Structure formats: structure tokens, C-alpha cells
């Protein structure tokens, strides 16, 4: 159905003598909210819409509308094009796209059958099973599916469907003055999350927080879980690989292609063609076939990310990184499915004789996206003594600079998928635990 609407909008563009592209989206989002040890409500949302971008006299204009209002959308986009700068942009004509697995029929079956309730309850019960005083106070199970169609006046017409699953739970031990909490989350394109394991893991985590320690003196060797490091990485390093930020001097990577920017073992690749990655997809939201893009190879900076528009401005062409978080957003540069790897140590083997283990950080969005400096609260953290997790650390802050961290970090082998959404932005990052020495810590 969405494909028909995209075709209709393209027809209207041609009728008005315009070039352009159309992005159509039809989606459903079903959420089971968790509160106080049970599912507190169920909510469901369905929508469909079109994002229309036209090029008139070399200028781009954008508008969004619902199916049935295609011509109105095209004319609005045409009107707005008058305000933009001329840009020598050509819409790609894509015939073949990559093959990638990102659709699991079983997720639709669960959505239609209402079985999400059982999965959420499994997760909640597993929390309670750890100890009687541990409760799943917060969390959600979200099932999602969409159909995307992208077409343009150069003859591209692509369609694809995907599914995804997000699950998270916070386990709490209530105390007189303050409560202890620990969270666990997972995401997948298919129905392969072990919900009981997820619940148990958050329960066990909070159970190991009962004893407290004093914040050790700075500096410390810090081991961070994939979740904790992902929080910092997404707000500090990810902005600096955007081609636009590089061109505008808002990235410390400006002029550093080919140079060593990380430890020689570190590899960062944006690979949407990996089967079942959270951001896996056959084509980007501007109709280009997706391919793996090495960003950092063996510590050396290789490539930046570009969409069609920035590809023209930077004279590099698009790398297939045009993304729209919704039909209401014009395309923007985004990583699709980032994978950070380069280590082979098991997490426990990464533990130093003495140091700090951090499972979750708070406030990473306030980091400096230009310089890469960060200063965050370690929300679930433990002291490491004799290579083992000892008492929890309350209110400890860690601070540093991501680019300095990249040079001296060691990566583990415990890869996990993480997903983060903020407005139309989405960051899908697969990464392991990391160990960084010489980290500044304070407080508590």
C-alpha cells in the first residue's frame, strides 16, 4: 500500500516538472510497560506517512503528508525549495540492492497474538526469582515493524520490511534512605532475546550492589560494560565521523584521514549488510544500496559518513548513510549499524588487580561532541579488588576525552547490540566491554 502512495507522489512530481524523491513509511509499535513488578499498561500505535523532497531550479524543498494528499505535499515542497541554496544533486538510479536479513515473521505473530504479555511476564518473574526483595520497578517490551518504500524520479523504486524487538528492565532493592537499582536491556531484529536471562541478569546485578565501597583515588583503570561505553561513545565519537561535522571543522578528525587515531587493534565499521544487526537494511533512506564502510581499520582513520547532500558539498558522494528517523524528517547523515571490535579478552580477564567496573553511565548526552570531552556519573559501578568485583560505588563521576581513550583502550570479546533513540536520531552500535587506564574519577 505504501509503495502505491510513493508511486503516486512521483507521478505528481513528474506532472509538475519536478525532480525528487519520496520516502513512505508504514509502521506499528506495540509496547508493554513494566511498573512495580507487573505489566502496568499496553499501548499500540500505527501510522503511515510520506516524506517528499523535490528539486526545482537546483534547489531542494521538503514536506510531509499522509497518503491521499500526495499532490499537496509535492506543491508544498516545491514552494519551500525557493528558500534553499542551489545544489548539484542527482538522485541515484538504483536497480539492485544488498541482501540482508532484518525481518522476522515471528515478531508479527507475537504482535497479533498478544503474546508479548507472556514475554514481559517472563522477564519480570525472573527478576523476582533472584531474591524476594528485588522488584522489576520499571521497564518495557517493545515490538516494532515497518514497511519502507523509497523512490525517485531517476527510476529508483525500492521496498522493504523490517522487525525489531527492544526489551529493558530495571531491578530495584528498596531502602530506607535510598534505593539500589540496576538495569539490563537488549535489542534484536528477530525473536531471539532470552527474556528470563535478561530479567535474572538485572536482578543479580542489583543483588551484588548491597555492600558499598568508598570511591578510590584518581586515576583508575576502568572497565566499562558495552552499555556504559556505548553511552559515552554515541555522544562523543559518533558525531566526529559525520562528513558534515568534518567539513565544518566540528570534528577533531578533520584532516586526519589515513592517520592513526586509535589503538592498532581497534576496528570500527558501519555495516548495515550484517544479518540481524539492529540497523541492518538493504538500502538507505535515499535509495542507495547499503555496503559495509570501514571507519577505523587497525587504528587508522579510513572514512567518514555522507548522505547525498553532504556528498555533493564535500565532493565525496554519498556513502549510503542517508537516514530518516520518521517520514517527518528530511534525510540526515547517520551511522546505520556501527560495529566496534578488536579484542579477544573475556570480560573477567580484563579486570585489573585494582580498579573500577562500570555498568551504566548517566548524563553522557551533556558531553562535548566537538572535543570529545565527557564527564558522567557512573550509575552502576563497583570497585575491583584482587581482580574481582567488590563493593558498589555511589555517585562516582568519571571524566576523560574519547579520542585519548581510543588510543589506550583494550576491547573484550563480549559483543552486544545497543540501541538508542533521541528525536529522529537513532544510534545502533554493537560493541564489547572496554578497559581504559588512567581515567580520572571523583566524588561519592
Amino acid at each position, binding site marked *: 500500500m505504501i509503495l502505491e502512495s510513493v508511486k503516486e507522489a512521483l507521478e505528481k512530481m513528474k506532472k509538475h516538472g519536478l525532480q525528487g524523491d519520496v520516502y513512505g513509511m508504514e509502521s506499528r*509499535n506495540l509496547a508493554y510497560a513494566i*511498573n*512495580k513488578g*507487573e*505489566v*502496568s*499498561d*499496553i*499501548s*499500540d*500505535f*500505527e*501510522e503511515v506517512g510520506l516524506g517528499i523532497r523535490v528539486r526545482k531550479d537546483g534547489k531542494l524543498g*521538503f*514536506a510531509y*503528508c*499522509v497518503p491521499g494528499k500526495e499532490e499537496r505535499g509535492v506543491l*508544498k515542497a516545491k514552494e*519551500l525549495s525557493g*528558500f*534553499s*541554496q542551489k545544489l548539484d544533486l542527482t538522485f541515484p538510479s538504483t536497480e539492485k540492492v544488498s541482501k540482508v536479513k532484518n525481518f522476522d515473521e515471528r515478531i508479527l505473530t507475537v504482535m497479533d497474538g*498478544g503474546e508479548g*504479555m507472556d514475554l514481559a*511476564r517472563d522477564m519480570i518473574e525472573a527478576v523476582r526469582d533472584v531474591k524476594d526483595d528485588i522488584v522489576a520497578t*520499571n521497564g518495557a517490551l517493545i515490538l516494532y515493524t515497518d514497511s519502507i518504500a523509497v523512490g525517485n524520479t531517476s527510476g529508483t523504486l525500492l521496498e522493504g520490511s523490517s522487525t525489531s524487538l527492544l526489551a529493558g528492565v530495571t531491578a*530495584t532493592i*528498596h531502602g530506607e*534512605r*535510598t*534505593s539500589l*537499582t540496576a538495569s539490563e536491556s537488549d535489542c534484536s531484529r528477530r525473536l531471539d532475546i532470552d527474556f528470563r536471562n535478561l530479567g535474572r541478569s538485572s536482578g543479580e546485578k542489583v543483588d551484588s550492589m548491597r555492600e558499598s565501597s568508598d570511591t578510590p583515588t*584518581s586515576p583508575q583503570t576502568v572497565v566499562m560494560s558495552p552499555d556504559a561505553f556505548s553511552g559515552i561513545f554515541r555522544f562523543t565519537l559518533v558525531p566526529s565521523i559525520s562528513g558534515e561535522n568534518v567539513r*565544518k*571543522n*566540528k570534528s577533531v578528525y578533520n584532516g586526519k584521514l589515513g592517520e592513526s587515531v586509535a589503538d592498532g587493534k581497534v576496528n570500527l565499521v558501519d555495516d548495515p549488510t550484517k544479518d540481524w544487526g539492529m540497523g541492518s537494511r538493504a538500502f538507505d533512506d535515499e535509495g542507495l544500496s547499503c555496503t559495509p564502510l570501514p571507519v577505523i581499520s587497525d587504528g587508522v582513520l579510513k572514512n567518514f559518513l555522507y548522505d547525498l547532500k553532504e556528498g555533493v558539498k564535500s565532493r565525496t558522494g554519498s556513502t549510503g548513510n542517508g537516514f530518516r528517523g520518521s517520514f*517527518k524528517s*528530511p534525510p540526515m547523515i547517520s551511522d546505520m549499524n556501527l560495529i566496534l571490535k578488536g579484542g579477544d579478552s573475556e570480560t573477567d580477564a580484563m579486570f585489573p588487580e585494582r580498579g573500577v567496573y562500570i555498568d551504566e553511565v*548517566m*548524563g553522557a548526552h*551533556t558531553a*562535548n561532541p566537538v*572535543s570529545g*570531552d*565527557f*564527564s*558522567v*556519573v557512573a*550509575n552502576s559501578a563497583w570497585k575491583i579488588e584482587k581482580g574481582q568485583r567488590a563493593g558498589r560505588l*555511589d*555517585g*562516582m*563521576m568519571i*571524566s576523560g576525552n574519547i579520542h585519548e581513550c581510543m588510543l589506550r583502550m583494550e576491547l573484550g570479546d563480549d559483543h552486544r547490540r545497543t540501541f538508542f533513540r*533521541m*528525536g529522529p536520531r537513532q544510534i545502533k552500535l554493537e560493541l564489547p566491554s572496554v578497559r581504559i587506564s588512567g581515567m*580520572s574519577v*571523583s*566524588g*561519592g
Partner: protein
Amino acid sequence: MTLKKMVDGIVEQGARFCDVRKERWDVNHLVLKDGNVEQMVSGEEEGAMVRVLYGNGWGCVGTSALERLEDAARRALAMAKQNHTFKEEKTGVATINPVTCKEYMPAKIRFEDVSFQEKVSFMKEIHNFLERDWVKSADIIYRDSVVKKEIVNSEGTHVMMEIPRLVTYMVVTGKENGSIQQASEGGGGTGGYELREGAYEKVDTVLDRLRDLLGADTAPSGRLPLIMDHHLTGVFVHEAFGHAAEGDLVTSGNSCLARKLGEMVAGENVTITDDPTFPGYGSFPYDDEGTKARPRILVDGGKLNDYILDRESAWKLGLEPNGGARAEDFRVKPIVRMSNTLMKAGDMKLEELLEDVHRGIYARSSSGGQVSPAQGTFQFNAQVAYLVEKGEITKPLRDVSFSGFTLDTLRKITGITDEMKTGVGHCGKGQSAPVSDGGPQVLISEVTVGGR
């Protein structure tokens, strides 16, 4: 079928309560980068969400296809029934008086009467004011929106309202001696195009801040006294306190303020309100359950006096709903949110606060923060800070964040100035909500400072 008939039909099938919130949005979003129009989005959309309470279970279904609304209501009922089957905790919606009313919040200059040309000219003018040798890049973001809402419930409430909002942001990046720094400033409120005027006075503020950042040192770490400017005080009351006062967190075991009503949670000098009727970016006449907005005095002279409540959390606590339910749009159900959160001014001058600081930090403005309301820990950062030595401001500092425990920190407020200012922001709690926050300048005797 009318909305009223639809919700009544659901109640006739055994539901305890049903409401529908229909919304129509008109949005213009413009981005000017380095003086050129980079993004211009104009869109209109409508949709609705139906909520059903059956027994103790909730089902909420939203759709952008209004012709399928009755189907959405039926599905919401089925979901509520499924939820009820597995739910042990009793719940309900506290009583509000049913109202029928139309409330249009005023806009002196309506957005639809202003051409795109004029909006672009305004942004270009701001851009020109921001030009300096050392400013390498300047982005101006402008967004206006008008939402028309219609809320109908099975108890007879029928609220129609219109809320216009405008927000502007300027983000400037500077480079000097190899240092790249960024500063930003936002402005706006609830009202019409006249609100853009506020942006002009922010130009000097943001340039001064960037100038200081370019010459700034890294900050010390440790436990130090902190003086917060007005904007930072706002972020502090929002993050460190406000979230923990949200009724849904209080009733679900996720707040350090649970069961503390009537207790002293701060010094006697501290009064904090959350007030949707105050003219700010987070104002509204009725909340998204159709409850009339009213000021909430959360902390009165140090005593925890009230929570922010929607109908469900009020029911669970045996209190009266006070207009705390807000939804980002028709895609999501209303949850308890802040509106305009303010700390009341005291009687001191900034110089007097400084005098009390032997070695500490004076911090200005913020790009946000985060809180873990159950643990009662918070973090927020300062856009720029200054080292204070023996009562004197000595040098600028960058990349500094603060953290602490809410209940400890509120008791450590030892000085409050006599004038207040507010700022705009977007609060994230799974959904985004436009809010204002602010207050006087405040001295906290000790927080954890994370510098480098």
C-alpha cells in the same frame, strides 16, 4: 459517530473509563546553517489516541488514520482486558469535575500570518549578529507549532484547546589556538511569533560564553562548593528534584521522595513550584486528561508539600489530580510531566554568595542533565564555569559536570539571590516535553565536580 458516543460505547461494554484525545498539528521547522537555509520542513498531521481502563488494566491505541478510530477503541478495550487478567495492583482514575470548554492560548502574531520569507529574514538577521572572526560556524534553529486538541471522556469532559509554541536555538562553534568550542542558547515560550524577539538578547550571552570557553582550562575534580546561575538553578531543580516529584515515579517505587509528603526535604530557605499557568514554554490551560492546570507548590519552605499528579497517580495516593498528565503527541499516552519548574528567589546578592566561597566553582548555563529518581542521584553539566578563589572569579573552565544525591544536596543550599530568570528546554522521559525552568542564583556548599 461522535467521540462521546464512541467512548460511551466502550464503557457500555464493561470498561470503567475511556477517553480519546484527538490532535491536529501544524509545524514549521527551519534550520539556518552558516547563513543558508539548510532545512525547511512544513507539515500538518492529525491523529488520536484512545485509552481504556478495564478492571485494573489499561489499553491505549493510537492511530494516524482517524477513519479507523472506532477499530482503535475496540482494540484498546481488548488490550485493557488482557492487561487486567494479569494485574494484581488495584488502580483507578481519581475524580475530576467534568468540564466542557474551549480554551485558545493567545498568540499576538499567529504563525500562519507570517510568511516563510519573514521567518528566514529573522533567522538571517540573528546569524549576522553572531558573526565574528573567531566564530567558525553558527546554526540557528527555529520551530513554531500549533496544536489543536480535543479531549473527550466517558465522564462527560469535553475540552477543546489550542496551544501555539515557538522555540529558537542558536549554536555557535568557535576556534582559537587549536581549541574548538561550542556554546548554545535557547529561547521561546507559549504564544505567537512575537516570542522571537527574545532571541536578540541571547546573542551577546552566547558570544560571551563562547569567548570564555575558547580561553578556558579544564576543571578540577572533587567535592567543592558550587554557585549556579539562574539557568543552571533551573536545570538543577528540574533534574535533581522535579523528576522525583512526578506521581507516576512516586507510586511505582521509582522515587526517593515517596512517602515523604509533609517532611522537610530541604532547608527552610527553599521553595520550589511547578506551574503550567506561569508564562513559559511548558504552559498549558488543561492537561492531556482534561484536568485544569494549576500551580503546584512542591516544596514550601523546605517541606515536601505536593507531587505532580495525573489521575491515576492521584488515585493511588488518595490525592487530587493537579494537571500533571502530558503526552508528546497523539502517538503516545499521557504520563506525569513537569511544566514550568521554578525555585523561589531569596534575599542575597551574587557578591554575597561569592564571599562565602574560598575555593569553588561558579557555573553558568547548561546543556542538560539526567537523573536516577529511585537512587536519588543526578548529573548535570555547565556550558561554562569559572574558578572561584577567595571570593573572586579567577579563570574560565570548560567541560565540567556536577552530581550528587537529591536529598543531601537540597539541604546544602546555603545562599539564594534575590532575582530570578527562566530558560527553555525539552525534557526527555521516553517522550519529549517542552518545559521551562529557572530560579535565582544559588550556592550549594558541596557537590561532586567532575572535571578532567
